[in-house]
């Protein structure tokens, strides 16, 4: 049996090729930044931030009459503002951090849905914002993603050792007199940019999965952070492309398809990861 057509057929469509490039890029950037999100226990923050972007996206959509390039910059602006606001709220608030984040995130999300509900054909647009529309990615979208994704990776690389100290031991970061507050905000802004980059591929509701799941899969396979970032990036990119193939053949929406492939990868690692996987532990139990 010749499997080549199975792989090559979808590639005849330019929108599929663009979609795969977008999905792979998102997989890489999300996994690298997501490693910090996971290790620092910021998953809830990431999810909240993704949802808080919606009113900005809606406003951009209304103002520009649906021009996609503009929506992208509106989303970016909102994400930056939201990350700093949520960061400030969670630091100096009267209530618990997760309570404060919940209130901000739910209000922003409601505001966004309210705004979109005033538009005509709102169901379709809302679905695209929430769950992504990777097959609608244009060449200029790809350039935006590459530019911002590249910037995120560059900053992560440049500040690698500072972020590492900050994440592992904030007290050491303070005694080394690193600018802890500033570095924290830089990380928040990187997360915000990452979410915007992945907005079109998996959408607001599923961005969390791209941030956390590949990084978590990688964390089961290695105990070194740099290796974890590389593995996570590989898992994320692979899941993105595989998810799109499955979406093509099974005729399911692309965002959920990508996320579910990520999840399958995680479960597989949970079962067969060397040393820590379920199968490994079973075998050791039998031996010893």
């Amino acid at each position, binding site marked *: 049996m010749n499997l080549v057509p199975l792989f090559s057929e979808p590639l005849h469509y330019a929108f599929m090729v663009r979609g795969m490039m977008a999905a792979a890029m998102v997989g890489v950037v999300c996994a690298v930044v997501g490693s910090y999100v996971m*290790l620092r226990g910021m998953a809830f923050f990431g999810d909240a931030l993704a949802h808080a972007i919606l009113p900005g996206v809606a406003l951009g959509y209304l103002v520009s009459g649906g021009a996609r390039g503009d929506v992208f910059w509106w989303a970016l602006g909102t994400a930056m503002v939201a990350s700093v606001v949520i960061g400030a709220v969670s630091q100096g608030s009267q209530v618990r951090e997760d309570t404060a984040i919940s209130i901000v995130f739910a209000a922003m999300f409601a505001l966004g849905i309210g705004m979109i509900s005033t538009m005509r054909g709102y169901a379709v647009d809302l679905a695209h914002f929430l769950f992504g529309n990777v097959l609608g990615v244009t060449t200029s979208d790809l350039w935006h993603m590459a530019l911002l994704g590249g910037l995120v990776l560059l900053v992560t690389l*440049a*500040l690698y*050792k*500072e972020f*590492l*100290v900050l*994440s*592992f*031991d904030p*007290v*050491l970061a*303070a*005694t*080394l*007199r*690193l*600018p802890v507050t*500033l570095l924290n905000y830089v990380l928040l802004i990187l997360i915000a940019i990452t979410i915007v980059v992945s907005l079109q591929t998996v959408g607001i509701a599923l961005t969390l999965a791209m941030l956390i799941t590949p990084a978590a899969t990688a*964390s089961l396979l*290695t*105990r*070194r*952070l740099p290796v*974890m970032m590389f593995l996570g990036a590989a898992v994320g990119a692979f899941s993105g492309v595989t998810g799109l193939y499955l979406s093509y053949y099974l005729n399911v929406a692309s965002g959920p398809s990508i996320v579910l492939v990520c999840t399958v990868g995680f479960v597989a690692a949970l079962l067969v990861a060397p040393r820590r996987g379920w199968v490994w532990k079973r075998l050791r139990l039998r031996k010893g």
Partner: protein
Amino acid sequence: MNQYFSSLFAPGVSHREGASVLEVSNLTVIYGGKTALEGVSFHLAQGERMAVVGPNGAGKSTLLKVIAGLLPPSSGEVKVYGHAPGGHICIAYVPQRSQVDWSFPVSVSDVVMMGRTRKIGLFRWPRRKDREHVRQCLDLVGMSDLAGQQIGELSGGQQQRVFIAQALAQEAHLILMDEPLTGLDVPAQEDLFRILDELRQHRVTMMISTHDLNQASGRFDRVMLLNRRLLSLGAAREALTLENLATAYGSHLPFLVPGNGIVPHPPPRPL
């Protein structure tokens, strides 16, 4: 924002000529509405090893954190080599082991290299001389063989030694350790003191909080007895008198046998 960046490139404040390593005068710390420390004054000489003992909640951790520049004093002054601690990068604070996330995906040498973050400098990667330095620090604490190990796989004594190596990699002149002996068995404690003896030869000054009055009385140049206020400070024989201990611990007096050192509570009961 500017001062943040310039502080990242600066090598830390210089040491004033002739100033003592640590000078604490009339230090009071009010923390969450409660007085944690009140009117504490003392100084440390270069190469000295001091134990800080006192009951739970006596302010031992608070004292170490203020000296490290992690908490601000409410009144009074802390001077390290003649300057406030906030600008120094020569102070290492070794946290209690329970404060560390041991599942974090880093190896022993990664953790030690973290101490060199400022020496390496912003936007730079470790160079050959940094790796060489880390190797020497690991050698000094006898952990070279385990350099590639994930930190969660180490024993308690080994974990403690990794953080000492980190302090050495930082090129710290003043090392503050919070309860390093807690949870270590006797051989691991012996190993630790062997390393601390070696550090003393390198003129590193150390201030160590502990619950272990036996170790405090036998292994340190001076002992500080603390219960919010400084109750006594000096050689163990003078500082840990029965009277002082009774004042510090009240009815929870964990030891007896006057004039003959201290034994842990409960004292052996005759059969």
